[in-house]
């Protein structure tokens, strides 16, 4: 809310410098977000009275104005035609500096300076005429003294609708500064006949309208508002419409009570009914929109039709027009929840509804009503009719709260006696009565503070009046030992650090994705629609694990997404990984190695979704940057990614895991694997992005590799305790073996055969060459392995090694149709 200080100072004096006032307000709960000053650049501008106007002797379209500056007269040339003799206007002499920095130059020999329009003063963009000041403005004063102002932009918390008003803020300033609050009583001069003879009011639904007050002012002239009113509204952020509407807005800003003014002559049958809308009823509001009403919406209606959506906006047909001569002013109280619902359903949020939604006090309507009537009579002319209509439910009693002795101290941790408590509550309008010798206090709550309901609220009031910085800085007493992090928490942290050390950069991507980012992944299917559950299951790691947790493969759709880019809770990390990779590929081929360890979401019937911790990895681009030692550089490949996973699974101590060629909708059919546990449980997948997908994603020819693992399962499979095996002190025998196998045989089968035949003395099999060219026959490949043999209790003889190799040869032939081409012995 914007608060022009000149307006505020009508109700409270403050001697505090502006910055200090802003800080005191902020530190007592009224956050001052901005301070805007007008008039700081008006040093050379003064007020002047126009004493004579004549046509310019040479140029037809110009006038020559003689203005009085109090102690002397000056001449100014102007093209504006809106001024008359007697007007007070801003004047700047030749050589003076305008707010935009320009220096005023002479316009012909007749000119001593110039008269200024709003835009030249920096007040607005308006250049339609000279800015005319209030008629009682003295001449010859610095303009800043007359017109300069400071406007605070304050943020009002939703519990303080009373502070959405100048009066409410004046109360706050009075309380924090110790200054006297001065709200003049409104005295009205009333005339016959009584308002009751002009109009009748009937409240059909008092449950939605606890109070309805109405006054009539007739014989008014609708026209432009006086300059001060326009200026105040403008400073507060509102546009001027006409004097009647401006006054109702002015009073709303001043008192926080929205008003509705409408044309008495347009009220059919001179009867107002406050009622719920009928089904099918429509209403065209002031803004020209037509609303279809429902029976839970409250209307202000006449005998025939609605004249306003209660508390929100008036109807177009009864609005104040230049022809209006009799005005009705409505000041009412409506139930906040109903206004909120109606405003939402109607898609209308107005200054009025915004205030009603937060709940306004019962006592307020007549005060604002009289203030508005008085201003209308003064500014628009006309007479205020005798009496006001006031139909109300019984006044709610003033709330009284019992504050037990020590309660404030118990909550705040600072000792305050009754006197101190009282000193911090009374300035805000609380009344305190001690309860005999019990030490308790009865605290009577001001009518405008509906938010104060129990002792904790009073502790809050005391604390903010004291200032939070006054409350000492303590520390919870009593030692409480933090529980150690849980196993999954420790595991997650360990894995994160392991992956960082493996050269992968930690990602955080949005858990909300688009449906199209999933459909895109189905390359062969060319999916146009959202993937169905069966398709989705093909996309995610360990789909069985999802089912085991009672979850399904439906998409979790947001009801109210911000955009289609973020409409679903992700079932896979893949879209986020792809997006990050793509963005970085725009500028680099280096260091493209990322991981994300975060949740994916799968719905469960009648329950919250299964949120599964998932590990995603992507690598692409160059293995090492192109440097003097690496030129030309090489690209990463499938085995770089596989190596990371192997290292990770070994780190986790997962026993007997293996890789199997597999299919995945988004990956290269010949370069994809599943990661399986020794028991055949699915841990996840890895592979190269399908080339078609890579080109449709415009990955600039880069081969990209992706992996996803069920991290919940991986965590469960991880071993925390490692026990080392003793190292044999006997020498090892190292021999290489090259075996020719049919090309279709996987190396893993060769390794398995060798391992099976090698028995416990075979310590390691490492493939160091796979070769499928001459002299290897067509359709075959040569697999060369380095074998390490060692016994724990003796030195192996060459004879034993020879025997083992014979076994291995036989096994290779039997299991994979392999023929040993060559063996060689390494001495070391």
């Amino acid at each position, binding site marked *: 809310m914007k608060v022009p200080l000149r307006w505020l100072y009508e109700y409270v004096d403050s001697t505090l410098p502006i910055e200090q006032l802003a800080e005191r307000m902020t530190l007592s*709960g009224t956050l001052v977000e901005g301070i805007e000053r007008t008039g700081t650049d008006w040093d050379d501008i003064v007020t002047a009275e126009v004493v004579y106007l004549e046509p310019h002797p040479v140029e037809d379209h110009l006038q020559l104005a003689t203005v009085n500056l109090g102690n002397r007269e000056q001449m100014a040339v102007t093209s504006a035609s809106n001024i008359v003799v007697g007007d007070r206007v801003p004047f700047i002499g030749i050589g003076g500096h305008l707010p935009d920095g320009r220096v005023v130059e002479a316009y012909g020999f007749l000119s001593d300076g110039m008269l200024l329009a709003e835009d030249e003063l920096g007040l607005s963009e308006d250049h339609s005429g000279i800015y005319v000041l209030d008629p009682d403005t003295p001449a010859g004063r610095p303009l800043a003294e007359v017109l300069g102002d400071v406007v605070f932009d304050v943020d009002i918390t939703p519990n303080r609708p009373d502070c959405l008003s100048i009066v409410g803020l004046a109360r706050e300033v009075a309380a924090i500064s110790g200054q006297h609050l001065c709200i003049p009583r409104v005295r009205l001069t009333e005339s016959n006949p009584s308002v009751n003879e002009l109009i009748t009011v009937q409240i059909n639904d008092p449950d939605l309208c606890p109070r309805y007050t109405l006054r009539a002012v007739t014989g008014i002239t609708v026209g432009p508002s006086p300059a001060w009113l326009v200026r105040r509204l403008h400073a507060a952020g509102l546009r001027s419409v006409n004097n009647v509407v401006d006054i109702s807005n002015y009073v709303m800003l001043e008192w926080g009570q929205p008003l509705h003014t409408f044309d008495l002559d347009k009220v059919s049958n001179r009867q107002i009914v406050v009622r719920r809308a009928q089904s099918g009823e429509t209403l065209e509001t002031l803004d020209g929109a037509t609303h279809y009403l429902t029976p839970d919406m409250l209307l202000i209606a006449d005998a025939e039709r609605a004249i306003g959506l209660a508390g929100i906006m008036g109807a177009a047909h009864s609005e104040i027009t230049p022809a209006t001569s009799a005005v009705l002013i409505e000041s009412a109280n409506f139930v906040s929840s109903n206004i909120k619902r109606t405003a939402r359903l109607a898609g209308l949020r107005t200054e009025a509804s915004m205030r009603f939604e*937060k709940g306004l006090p019962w006592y307020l309507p007549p005060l604002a009503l009289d203030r508005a009537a008085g201003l209308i009579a003064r500014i628009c002319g006309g007479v205020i009719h005798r009496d006001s209509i006031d139909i109300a439910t019984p006044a709610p009693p003033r709330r009284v709260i019992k504050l037990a002795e020590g309660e404030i101290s118990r909550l705040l941790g600072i000792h305050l006696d009754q006197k101190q408590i009282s000193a911090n509550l009374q300035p805000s309008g609380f009344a305190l009565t001690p309860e005999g010798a019990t030490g308790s206090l009865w605290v009577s709550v001001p009518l405008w503070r509906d938010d104060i309901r129990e002792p904790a609220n009073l502790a809050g009031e005391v604390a*903010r009046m004291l200032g939070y910085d006054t409350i000492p800085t303590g520390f919870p007493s009593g030692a409480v030992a*933090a529980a150690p992090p849980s196993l999954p928490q420790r595991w997650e942290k360990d894995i994160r650090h392991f992956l960082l050390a493996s050269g992968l950069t930690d990602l955080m991507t949005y858990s909300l994705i688009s449906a199209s980012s999933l459909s895109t992944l189905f390359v062969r299917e060319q999916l146009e629609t959202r993937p169905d559950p069966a398709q989705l299951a093909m996309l995610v790691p360990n789909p069985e694990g999802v089912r085991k947790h009672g979850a399904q493969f439906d998409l979790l759709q*947001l009801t109210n997404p*911000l955009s289609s880019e973020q409409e679903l*809770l992700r079932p896979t990390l893949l879209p986020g990984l792809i997006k990050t990779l793509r963005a970085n590929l725009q500028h680099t081929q280096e260091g493209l190695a990322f991981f994300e360890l975060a949740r994916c979401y799968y719905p469960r019937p009648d329950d*919250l*979704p299964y949120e599964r911790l998932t590990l995603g990895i992507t690598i692409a681009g160059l293995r090492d940057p192109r440097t003097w030692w690496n030129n030309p550089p090489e690209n990463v490949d499938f085995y770089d990614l596989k190596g990371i996973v192997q290292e990770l699974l070994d780190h986790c101590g997962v026993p007997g895991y293996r890789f199997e060629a597999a299919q995945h909708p988004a990956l290269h059919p010949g370069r994809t694997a599943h990661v399986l546990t020794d028991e055949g449980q699915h841990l996840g997948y890895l592979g190269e992005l399908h080339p078609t997908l890579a080109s449709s994603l415009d990955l600039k020819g880069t081969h990209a590799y992706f992996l996803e693992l069920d991290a919940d399962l991986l965590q469960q499979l991880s071993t925390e305790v490692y026990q080392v095996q003793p190292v044999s002190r006997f020498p090892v025998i190292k021999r290489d073996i090259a075996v020719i196998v049919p090309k279709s045989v996987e190396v893993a089968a060769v390794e398995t055969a060798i391992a099976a035949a090698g028995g416990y003395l075979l310590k390691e099999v490492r493939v160091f060459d796979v070769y499928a060219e001459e002299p290897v026959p067509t359709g075959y490949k040569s697999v060369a392995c380095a074998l390490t043999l060692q016994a724990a209790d003796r030195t192996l003889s060459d004879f034993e090694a020879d025997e083992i190799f014979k076994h291995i040869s036989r096994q290779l032939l039997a299991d994979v149709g392999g023929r040993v081409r060559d063996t060689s012995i390494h001495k070391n």
Partner: protein
Amino acid sequence: MQEETSLILELDEVARSAEAELDSMGTLQELEDWRVHHLGRMGSVAHLMKRLATLPPQERRAAGQAANAAKKRLEDAFMQRKTLLASVALDATLAQERIDVTLEGHRPHIGYAHPTRMVLEEAEAIFQRMGFSVIEGPDVEWDSYNFQQLNIPPDHPARDMQDTFYLDQMPGMLLRTHTSPMQIRFMEQHRPPIRIIVPGRAHRRDDDATHSPIFWQIEGLAVDTTITFSDLKGVLARFADEILGCKVRFRPSYFPFTEPSAEFDFTCLTCNGRGNLAGQTCRICKGEGWLEISGAGMVHPQVLRNVGYDPDVYSGFAWGMGADRIALLKYGIGNIRFLWEDDLRLRRQLR
């Protein structure tokens, strides 16, 4: 006597001239030739020493001593020269092997930690030292935990501040707008004393330079018989001091689930709380000098009642701080989107 004297003189002469030659032996090979020539079995010294046998016994002793001395002298000189030449040769080899140390090194592959994650891990450690246990909760929540039981009824004005993502799956299912639902979940399951923090994702329908629809919060909750607002101030001030060493400010605010409520601000590290740098508005705090880090306050008595605690016996404090905000402040990041875009050009700067 003459024989003896003559031999000694000859030895001396041979030794002297051999020594003189030594200085001109420039390579190890020349030096070796010199050794063979003078000290070898057929060398000049050996040749003279053979004549010892021809001397009379009484003269042999003195001449023998002289011969050995001469031999020793030459051997020492030889070793000295050899050491020198070896070191010269090594120097030459090493000079050959000189590399350009200014060339770029082979860097190992290093992954970059996420700034928000670094803040989360550091914050967890700090609060653990203060006795707070770390727990986690679901990202998808029920309306009841996210709002209702936190004293935010359906038509409460505070819902203005919480523009919430709902899910089609079931009515009342939503993406939690804060980590506070875990206050309720934890208190439902435990009795005081309670000291927990809850790091996690939170979601709001907001998307601009300072708001991301998804962000990280760290919830804190302490409930016991003697917990005060003063204790809250102490815990958060200590946190601020440990994580950034910056000044803090508490100012009154409003949340439906705390009373009294506070906003907890950190001074901006980039501009040192001045709001501007070299006349430019500070891009981190947008000229405020302060950055809102956390909402906080004493747990509202209604919230305590909702979980079956007697608010006349127990009191507690709670906060919900923005981990992303701390990361922005700590690393001088001007736009919260950076934390979600993972641009390597920026990430590489944080090691």
